């Protein structure tokens, strides 16, 4: 899967690199940690990863649409 972002951090003199993925419904990024046990998801409509929060997992509301609704005052929280 193509990463949505990339991190680099120096720890103990060594650079540690990691990819980040972005939730297609809320826009948040998380650092990919293979074997972390965190439960994420995949939206078949958006064809992209989901962060695993209940709001994002239960309904397909793409982030662009969510932005429009928020800017028009149709939802209170982005």
């Amino acid at each position, binding site marked *: 899967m*193509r*990463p*949505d*972002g*990339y*991190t*680099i*951090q*120096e*720890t*103990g003199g060594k650079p540690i690199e990691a990819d*980040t993925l*972005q939730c297609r419904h809320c*826009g*948040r*990024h*998380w*650092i990919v940690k293979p074997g972390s046990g965190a439960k994420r998801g995949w939206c078949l409509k958006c064809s992209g990863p989901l962060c695993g*929060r209940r709001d994002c997992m239960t309904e397909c509301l793409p*982030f662009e649409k969510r*932005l429009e609704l*928020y*800017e028009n005052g149709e939802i209170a*929280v*982005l």
Partner: protein
Amino acid sequence: MGMFAGVGAVVGGTDKTILTLISAATVRPELREVVIGCSDTPADQAARFSIMRFTAVGTEASGFTPTAWNPADPAGIADVGVGVFSAEPTYTANSDMLWIAINQRGPFRWIAQPGRGIIAPATASNGLGLRCKSATSVTPSWACTLAWEE
């Protein structure tokens, strides 16, 4: 469309905002890069940062005129607030867009793919804040950069 940056060196602490990227009614700034490093003598101490959404800008210590990465670009529309904030921005609960846990001795950088950044709505007084959520030592300053496209 151009890239802009805002910088600041601010003492951290529990729920202390370092920098804010303030949106406007006519632009959706897309946060594409975050750089964090300790700008004092670093110790073996840790801190946790988060990028969060806010709906009120709070009271910043100082402003920062965004720097255009391409000097030929027109001035940016989004704005930057630099801590220490005397009144914290009003953050949206559970809106942590990116968690960052670092050691003072380990600078951190995050870069998003174009089109995959963290977007703030085109709504006045809304935006994204780089917030120190907790720290094992609150004394050092954190030199931070936010870079965005608008």
